[in-house]
């Protein structure tokens, strides 16, 4: 992995500062922030996770796993990452640390890779591996989406741990296979729930339903790009819709989220996907965006740096490129604010242990930008 701007990073300075005015009148808080580039020259960065207070791992869709320590990008990628299919929206996607990472050094990766039997087809894969120094060892495949797909789009590929230690995996509809999101015999358009040894929890909602895959946890999704678990166990998920149909959902096990039988969007060709927007057996989104914002990542803010933002959802967006702050009340969106419009397409957002926000910009020259409270 080429890294040409190390000297600049060594002297990475506060590049700009500004104010974000909260429109929350009850708080009437003006949030003054300053931003700093932590790393740049990343090749399509996709996911970021902290492994300690000052160390993070970053995936590049092109296939490398990078380490940023004390604000400096290690020029050498972590070794032992499986070969990925870097095409379209596919590649090395999510990185997630085990809840007991300090003890077991386990991390989880999601990525697209060619099917071993039919190399023209590809699958979403989830593996577990142990991080030893700068090398991944003891790889174990936990999940492979089935059936394999021809397309290189709509993988989902987000991971999150529930409080009981089981792992949720988002598996997108593969674009061409959208109708399959309504069938329970495949992984298109699903959230699946597995144990960290790859087995299937016995209390999954469809374990006893004939012809249903027992790992399915919810269905009727499109391209799920954001997944967070609140402290009370509430699962929030957002997904790319077609034109005009991006959704934020509160996900419950066994529920059908409607895609593509009900949707607020239309196809890219302009075609109506469905004339229906609701059905008694299908869930409504908490919120949908029309026009689309192309939501790309999400956190639930729990940090101390911006105390008035605690409990808010932050959603990164690719179009036109910003962050949406959603104030939640009784599991409903009561306010939306658009932030950080100056960085272009934002691929992801994470919260650092110190409470600052890390924005991940999209593209071949992706950056990690730290947003801190102005001192």
């Amino acid at each position: 992995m080429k890294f040409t701007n190390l000297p600049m990073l060594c002297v990475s300075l506060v590049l700009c500062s500004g104010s974000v005015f909260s429109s929350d009148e009850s708080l009437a808080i003006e949030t003054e922030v300053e931003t700093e580039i932590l790393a740049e020259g990343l090749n399509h960065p996709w996911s970021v996770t902290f492994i300690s207070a000052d160390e993070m791992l970053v995936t590049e869709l092109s296939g490398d796993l990078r380490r940023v320590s004390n604000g400096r990008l290690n020029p050498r990628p972590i070794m032992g990452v499986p070969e990925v299919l870097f095409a379209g929206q596919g590649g090395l996607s999510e990185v997630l640390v085990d809840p007991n990472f300090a003890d077991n050094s386990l991390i989880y990766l999601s990525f697209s890779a060619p099917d071993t039997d039919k190399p023209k087809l590809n699958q979403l894969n989830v593996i577990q591996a142990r991080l030893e120094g700068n090398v991944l060892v003891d790889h174990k495949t936990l999940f492979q989406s089935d059936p394999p797909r021809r397309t290189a789009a709509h993988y989902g590929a987000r991971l999150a741990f529930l409080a009981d230690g089981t792992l949720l995996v988002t598996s997108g509809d593969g674009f061409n296979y959208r109708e399959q999101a309504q069938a329970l015999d495949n992984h298109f358009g699903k959230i699946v729930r597995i144990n960290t040894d790859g087995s299937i929890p016995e209390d999954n909602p469809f374990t006893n339903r004939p012809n249903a895959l027992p790992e399915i946890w919810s269905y009727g999704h499109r391209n799920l790009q954001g997944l967070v678990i609140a402290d009370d166990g509430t699962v929030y998920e957002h997904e790319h819709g077609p034109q005009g149909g991006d959704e934020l959902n509160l996900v419950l096990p066994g529920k059908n989220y409607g895609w593509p039988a009900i949707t607020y969007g239309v196809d890219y060709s302009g075609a109506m996907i469905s004339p229906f927007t609701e059905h008694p057996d299908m869930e409504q989104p908490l919120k949908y965006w029309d026009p689309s914002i192309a939501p790309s990542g999400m956190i639930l803010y729990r940090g101390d740096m911006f105390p008035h933002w605690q409990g808010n959802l932050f959603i990164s967006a690719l179009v036109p490129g910003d962050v949406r702050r959603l104030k939640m009340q009784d599991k409903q969106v009561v306010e939306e604010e658009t932030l950080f419009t100056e960085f272009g397409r934002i691929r992801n957002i994470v919260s650092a242990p110190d409470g600052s926000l890390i924005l991940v910009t999209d593209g071949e020259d992706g950056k990690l930008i730290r947003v801190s409270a102005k001192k």
Partner: protein
Amino acid sequence: MIKQIQTFLISLIIATFLVVTQTTATNLIWLQSIGMPVDMQVVLSAMATDLVDMNFRGAFPVIGLIFVGLLIAFITARIIAIWSSIKKPYLYALAGGAALLAIVALMPLAFYNLDLIAGARTVAGKAYLVVAGMIAGYYFGSHPQQGDSNEIH
């Protein structure tokens, strides 16, 4: 010349209508198969919406794609007709089919194997769209061209 343009535009409308309504039908047939309430009002409304939106509100105008495809195909057929003995309705039918085949085959190559026309996601769907191009081409070839004698081939 004006009559030839008129014939071309009618063949373009025929192909576009068949392509758009096939996508509409594909969507509605599936919706009905899973128990969604698809009635005649829904069918007519969806067809009308798609005919407007797929041609004028999508990321790419379907009618524009077909226009370019048929134009290139019919010009090529016209050149081939100089030395070919194939009857013109059949020659233009082949040209129209080739135009639609190119559209449904080449678009996925440019977009990570994605079929952006929903009706073209299956082999049967692609075959139908090729037949739609052949029908449009047959119509065009069945009408006298500039420089033709008055006989209908």
